[in-house]
């Protein structure tokens, strides 16, 4: 019902703005493209909810450059073609000087050529494929970590866990392949034997064949890279097939709370990388920001399982506003230049951009903290090694 009201309010606002012709002057628009329907709908909606909390906080505090900000959130339907359409609509029709999006690596990679074509920067809030910041697109500014950063952070943990032989199970897309490549490289360099590398369609629901193969390989640890829905099914089916190997989920789109709620006992003993641990906000770089974000989430009555996704959108809006403020005007090129200088205290940590990719066409990349949690006694805990 709240969604419907929000939709109606949005429509009324839009019609009002168009009628007076003053809408564009009253607010500074920021375009958001997220998968609100389709395979990634759950995560996309959480990120969108996170952006709404930040929008409300910023506007209650007076907005930016004396104006309120207005988020225009478009649904890219978890589909790369639709993602391109949403970006064109946001830039051409809404004239947004800055974008936030597009959740999955495949969706982000699909819209990147459009950013160069229209010369509008985008803050990438979730995607992890290395290709995004290494392909020489100077309009990309990523606040989420790359798979490579995640794998590097995992290196000491692999030693503690005593991993001898690793297997991989990942979605057959940019996100999954990028993650398995980076983890595989890191583990191999540290003397770990690499077992089967099994893939799956992002929409698949049955992984019995892959799990049977992994079980027979004798691997002691399986690195799983996918979104939470498939992760839940993999944990359940691994238990059905009595897979003894330790399961580590990578990529941070794993919502351990939702996994526990839905996989139950099958989640026991699994490990999950995350970039924000809402179970222990005190360990994060900026505990006061983490707690403010969590309070906003609670106030709106959003699903607690979405806390591990929503902060991505929340931080992205704060970074966007910091860049607009530094640019001094809602102009795409000025904002792009200003993004290089932003320092924002976020849930992701102290956000600022380092250069990645070919010289002269570098993309911006933030270096967030990576956390590992363990499911033990039906609860999310800090792992003890």
């Amino acid at each position, binding site marked *: 019902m709240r*969604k*419907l009201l929000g939709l109606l309010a949005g429509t009324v606002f839009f019609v009002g703005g168009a009628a007076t012709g003053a809408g564009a002057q009253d607010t500074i628009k920021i375009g958001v493209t997220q998968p*609100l*329907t*389709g*395979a990634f*709908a*759950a995560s*996309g*909606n959480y990120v969108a909810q996170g952006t709404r909390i930040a929008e409300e906080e910023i506007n209650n505090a007076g907005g930016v450059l004396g104006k309120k900000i207005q988020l225009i959130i478009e649904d890219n339907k*978890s589909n790369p073609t639709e993602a391109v359409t949403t970006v064109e609509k946001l830039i051409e029709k809404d004239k947004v000087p800055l974008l936030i999006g597009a959740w999955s690596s495949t969706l982000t990679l699909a819209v990147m050529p459009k950013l160069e074509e229209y010369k509008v920067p985008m803050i990438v809030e979730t995607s992890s494929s290395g290709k995004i910041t290494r392909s020489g697109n100077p309009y990309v500014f990523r606040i989420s970590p790359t798979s490579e950063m995640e794998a590097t952070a995992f290196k000491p943990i692999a030693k503690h866990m005593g991993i001898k032989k690793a297997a991989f199970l990942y979605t*057959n897309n940019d996100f999954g392949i990028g993650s398995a490549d980076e983890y595989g490289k890191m583990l191999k360099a540290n003397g770990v034997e690499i077992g089967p590398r*099994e*893939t*799956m*369609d992002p*929409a*698949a*629901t*049955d992984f*019995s*064949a*892959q799990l*049977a*193969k992994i*079980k*027979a390989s*004798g691997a002691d640890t399986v690195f799983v890279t996918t979104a*939470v*829905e498939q992760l*839940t*099914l993999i944990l359940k089916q691994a*238990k*059905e*097939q*009595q897979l003894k190997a330790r399961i580590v989920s990578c990529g941070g789109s794993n919502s351990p709370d*939702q996994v526990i*709620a*839905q*996989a*139950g*006992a*099958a989640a026991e003993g699994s490990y999950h990388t995350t970039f924000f641990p809402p179970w222990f906000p005190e360990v994060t770089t900026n505990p006061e920001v983490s707690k403010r974000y969590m309070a906003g989430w609670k106030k709106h009555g959003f*699903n607690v*399982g*979405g806390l591990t996704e929503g902060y991505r959108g929340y931080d992205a809006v704060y970074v966007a506003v910091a860049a607009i403020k530094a640019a001094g005007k809602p102009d795409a090129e000025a904002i792009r230049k200003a993004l290089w200088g932003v320092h924002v205290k976020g849930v992701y940590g102290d956000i600022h951009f380092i250069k990645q990719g070919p010289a002269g066409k570098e993309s911006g990349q933030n270096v967030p903290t990576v956390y590992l949690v363990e499911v033990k006694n039906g609860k999310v805990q800090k792992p003890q090694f």
Partner: protein
Amino acid sequence: MRLPVFAPFQFNALERRDLSEFLQHLLNAVILGGTYALLGIGLTLIFGIMRVVNFTHGELYAFGAYCMYALVMRLGVNFYLSLLLAMALGALLGAFIELVLLSRLRRADIDTTMLVMIGAWIIMQNTEQWIWSGVALSVKNPFPANPLVFGPASVSWLRVYVFVVALLLIAGTYLLINRTKLGKAMRATFQDPDTAALMGVRIGRINTATFAIGSSLAAAAGALLGPVFVVQPAMGDLAAAKAFAVVILGGLGSVPGATVGGFILAFAEELGAGYISSGYRDAMGFVLIILILLIRPTGLFARKERIG
């Protein structure tokens, strides 16, 4: 070239591991095949016999799963009773779709009907998302958490239950079509509606009944598989793709064909993913379907009667 005489232990260990993996693959394929067959039989009634390209099949499947979630998790209804209720609700929804949309399109060309059904599919999927949000939901089941173990292979009790119920539903559908008066009237109606009407068959009612039964079977598949997997709005898309594959493979309108087609698809996927490449798991099934259709263009069990 392996010489077991010189390295008996090594050889045995290797063989046993390969054999246990193979057994697990076989068990998985049999269980999965029952699922695909169940998805196929509901569609073979509607697509194969009625000749309606039913794009809402996947959504009726999702509807069954959401019914199961609502009944078991929200209203606390008994797990087994919920399956029957979900099937009844699926039949009602199917009858509603037939009466509101399809009964007006009976003389329309196939393109018009397809467009209307695509529209219905999108409306149904978005309605599910609006009511339940995109977050995946899970349904608890009364079966023990520990799997049923056959030597080195194992399978969950829930999946065994799904398999048994699926076989019962398939057998029931077969008997309904081939051994009952309603089944005879159904076959007559879709073979030649004018003659059937002249013989006193009320073809309007038969159309509604057939669509309702097919929908009920789709809902049953969703209600059975919802607890195995998770319930989410997009769950019907892949299910529908598999159902169409199974029906085309087996031959339009044939219940034994859909059953065999379901098992063939499951074996192709499971063994293809296990021994060739899991990345092409979904492609394996379709490659096999193309090969079979090249040899038998009407599918494995094409109906002997002419339709239309």
